[in-house]
């Protein structure tokens, strides 16, 4: 399977297969999409499709969707989805849109994989890079990952963010800084947190920029990139302003993520914490949590300077744990990037444990949620405990991947240590 030769036939087969699978679920199990849309693991207040429909309805009836507590998503979704035929009458178009987005993400992933950036970046070349999976395998792993499928069926709008982020990386790897920055600003516009990916992405672009028109000074390059992002985001905000006719979408879209005013349960660590938090400390801890979330960017970017792609992967993994409103779609994005590091898998120590923990959590979570909400025989602590386990399992995976990558770097310095017992001091 490793590095298998990929014919166009297989490519088409893969995409068609994934599309057919999703279409089949949409059409054959008509109850499932709405069920999944209702699951807290998939739909958060900032990505729920049902809330999107509500916002759309209000928007089409000239009620400002942001003058209310329901709709917290980016304004540009409104014209986009009102261009589609109405979901009530012709849902098929919405389904097709979501499937297309998934396939686009997969193709971006494919490009990233085939570039081999994971194994050998500009400043670093792994000694084990031969052992890698082809883009086909990685795209397949992404497309048939149950989390991805569930997210697509649940029509959570986070798939757009996923697609934007993956395309940003793909562009950067392909040496197109402009495209990367535009894609990243789209992602940040949709759901804010991708903005934290800017530093590693800039580095990635800087490393991969084409020699013919390469900017020498890194500072200048970074400045250009940052200004591009700022410009694009500003343009997007301006468009949103023209669409909604007021700036009130800003507090309602990004303010909610900053202040966590909607405490709907999800797979993250924030909701129960801030339900139980004393009012006087609420703002303080909000600040602390955000600080914590952003504190990883600097450290990782500096320490793993030579492999910016790794930094982005790890950051996405961390965001999937510590975001205000995480869902399994963030996890699926992280899990989509992990197979790029096939070459360091042998160096990982807890793969089985973390995989088992994640599986256990993903089974126990719905059970405990049922006990709390429907059967009424369990209380909120049940589900909260599972979210803790889930978070710990994923953080274990992130740590393990980082350890493996660092060890890989270290072994390039000291080839004789390959396979030796090591220590960290």
């Amino acid at each position, binding site marked *: 399977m490793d590095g298998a030769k990929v014919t166009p036939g297989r490519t088409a087969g893969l995409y068609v297969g994934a599309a057919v699978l999703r279409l089949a679920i949409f059409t054959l199990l008509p109850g499932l999409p709405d069920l999944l849309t*209702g699951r807290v693991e998939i739909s958060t207040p900032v990505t729920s499709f*049902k809330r999107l*429909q*509500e916002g*759309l*309805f*209000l928007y089409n009836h000239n*009620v400002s969707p942001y*003058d*209310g*507590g*329901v709709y917290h998503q980016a304004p540009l979704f409104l014209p986009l989805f009102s261009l589609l035929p109405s979901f009530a009458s012709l849902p098929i178009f919405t389904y097709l849109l979501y499937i297309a987005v998934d396939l686009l993400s997969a193709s971006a992933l494919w490009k990233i994989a085939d570039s081999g950036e994971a194994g050998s970046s500009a400043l670093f070349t792994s000694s084990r890079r031969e052992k890698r999976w082809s883009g086909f395998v990685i795209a397949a792993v992404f497309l048939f990952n149950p989390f991805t499928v569930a997210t697509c069926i649940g029509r959570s709008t986070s798939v757009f963010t996923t697609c934007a982020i993956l395309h940003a990386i793909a562009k950067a790897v392909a040496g197109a800084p402009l495209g990367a920055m535009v894609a990243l600003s789209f992602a940040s516009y949709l759901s804010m947190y991708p903005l934290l990916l800017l530093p590693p992405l800039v580095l990635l672009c800087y490393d991969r920029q084409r020699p013919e028109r390469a900017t020498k000074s890194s500072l200048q390059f970074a400045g250009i990139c940052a200004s591009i992002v700022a410009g694009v985001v500003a343009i997007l905000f301006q468009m949103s302003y023209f669409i909604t006719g007021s700036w009130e979408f800003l507090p309602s879209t990004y303010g909610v993520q900053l202040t966590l*005013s*909607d*405490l*709907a*349960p999800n797979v993250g*660590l924030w909701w*129960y*914490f*801030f*339900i*139980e*938090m*004393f*009012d006087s400390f609420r703002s303080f801890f909000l600040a602390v949590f955000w600080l*914590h979330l952003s*504190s*990883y960017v600097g*450290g*990782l970017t500096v*320490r793993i300077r030579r492999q910016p792609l790794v930094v982005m992967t790890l950051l996405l993994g*961390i965001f999937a*744990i*510590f975001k205000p409103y995480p869902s399994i779609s963030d996890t699926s994005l992280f899990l989509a990037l992990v197979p790029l590091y096939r070459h360091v898998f042998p160096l990982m120590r807890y793969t089985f444990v973390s995989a088992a923990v994640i599986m256990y959590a993903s089974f126990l979570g719905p059970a405990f949620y049922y006990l709390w*909400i*429907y059967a*009424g025989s369990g*209380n*909120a*602590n049940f589900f*909260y405990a599972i979210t*803790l386990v889930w*978070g*710990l399992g994923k*953080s*274990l995976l992130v*740590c393990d991947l*980082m*350890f493996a990558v*660092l*060890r890989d770097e*270290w072994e390039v310095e000291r080839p004789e*240590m390959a396979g*030796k*017992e*090591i*220590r*960290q*001091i």
Partner: protein
Amino acid sequence: MRQFLSFLWLSLLSISVFSSSAAADSDYHEQLNLRPLPFSGLLASFNFRSNTTVSEFEKGNFRFFPRSLGQILQHAGTRELHLRFSLGRWDAETWGASPWDGAREGGTGVELWAWLEADTDKEADHKWLTLTNALSGLFCASLNFIDGTRTTRPVMSFQPEGDHSTVTNMHLLYGVLPHEVVCTENLTPFLKLLPCKGKAGIATLLDGHKLFDASWQSMAIDIRPICPPGGECVLQIEQTIDMVLDIDRSKRPRGNPIPRPPPGHELPCDASKPYHSHDTCFPVDHAANQEWSLSQIFGKPMKGTCPLTDPAVPPVCLQVPDSRSVFVSGGVREKKNPNHISRCFDIPPSTELEMVLPAPDDVTAQSTVPTDIVTPKSPLLYAERSFTGHGQERGGVQTILRNPSPDTAVDFIYMESLPWFMRIYLHTMEARVAGHSANKSSLIQQVYYRPAVDRARATQLEVRMRVPPASTVFLTYDFEKSILRYTEYPPDANRGFDVAAAVITVLNKGQIQGEGESTTKSGGGGGDGGTTKGGRFAAYTLRTTTLLCSLPTPDFSMPYNVIIFTSTAIALAFGGLFNILVRRFVAADEGPEGGLAMVVGRLKGRLLGLLKGVKGR
């Protein structure tokens, strides 16, 4: 039957007209209407009305107008005020249309709406706050809890009943407390507002025990300016108490209210049954309408009349067919009304009124609709609201609206004011006619929707609908229950949260075409039919029952644990990551003695030192 009823209303109408004309000499009158209902119910509706001219009022010279209330109104710049205290539910299937066409009815709990004179919304809110706080003090009700999250500004449902031709900048605010339990402490201040303070007149019959043991009761206060053509404007306060008493429950002696099973021989049996014997008895109660007397029902006879009342208005009226005989104490003059279904009694002052209504002589009256009482007229619309779905995550609201009339469609406005933690999805709202699926557009004509804002504003939904004749319409929409901060839950969090009753205002046919501009002034119409019934805004008003919405609850004993656990999880991830980040790799066998062994060694050293120290002393 219908025309009988209109007769009845006309008769009352004539009374009220008469009174308003006679308002010159006396600006106060009171009246008690008694109406037996099926299944041994008795509707008693007390009505007290007093006027004072606006000019006098401005001068602060209140005559019959309660001073305490008047000052509050002046202070809060209130032009018109409606306050309702209600308990129980009006059983429309059995009792028919509610009294006053529902104009004096309120949803369970406390309901308040008023037109305030203010230039800006802020000012209106401020005045509203003043008003609610003052009223809560006056009526011993927690009206001060009507804050921003419980206040709405209806646009379609309510119209001022008084004349406000002079004022232009009026703001309507509407607040409701569904959880408030109405009880005696609300009745006492209510009676204090009366000129006779419940010492004389029909008010003497009002007794907390009986009132709050009633199957349904509603206390209403309406204050509105009325400008009779020609005459000068008067400020009218109307206090109404309607209650439905269960006759055999009320007949129980106060001392021993426990419904012990009666002795076997007193049990009314159906002897026609084959197995009927001394120890086997098929009961036949509830069908027959037994006898009752005023003092039995209210625990005491009525003490004379209030000397201030307008003598032209008979204080007590009873609505039974003329066929039935009524015994009253001496000196009381009975005069039957022309419509053969109601009679009124003129009571000389300072004579006790005792009234006895003997059981009907025809014992064959066993049908559920007995002929010995006035058959209640059926309401224009039946409404029933309930939750759908289960679980504490999401749910739906379903309202069943039935139009009984065989020929005329009903236009009405359906208003909900929901708490913010019920996030309703308007796009799921649909109305369908039971059976065949009619196109929705004909059902829902107009929607006014103001979404809730978390912790700041309640949802306000007003739907203008039309129900075709003789058909049932289901109005449904979905909502999501949001989980609150643990400090925002009441002490009895697991009981759930009360959701206020929906207000359904059936539009008057005369008004429907002129409905476009919603600020149509309607000539002062009391709920009692008013002087210009055709011009009245609402033909009929009804409230659904309140609902109990159970939200997901966190564990209230957990704050510290949650903070500790979450922080630990974060610390583990953070520590683990940065641990790997900052350390450097060495082979196992090189570098200084590190990791655990080092720690152990250090510990050993410490312990030895400690031991030495200990032994030292």
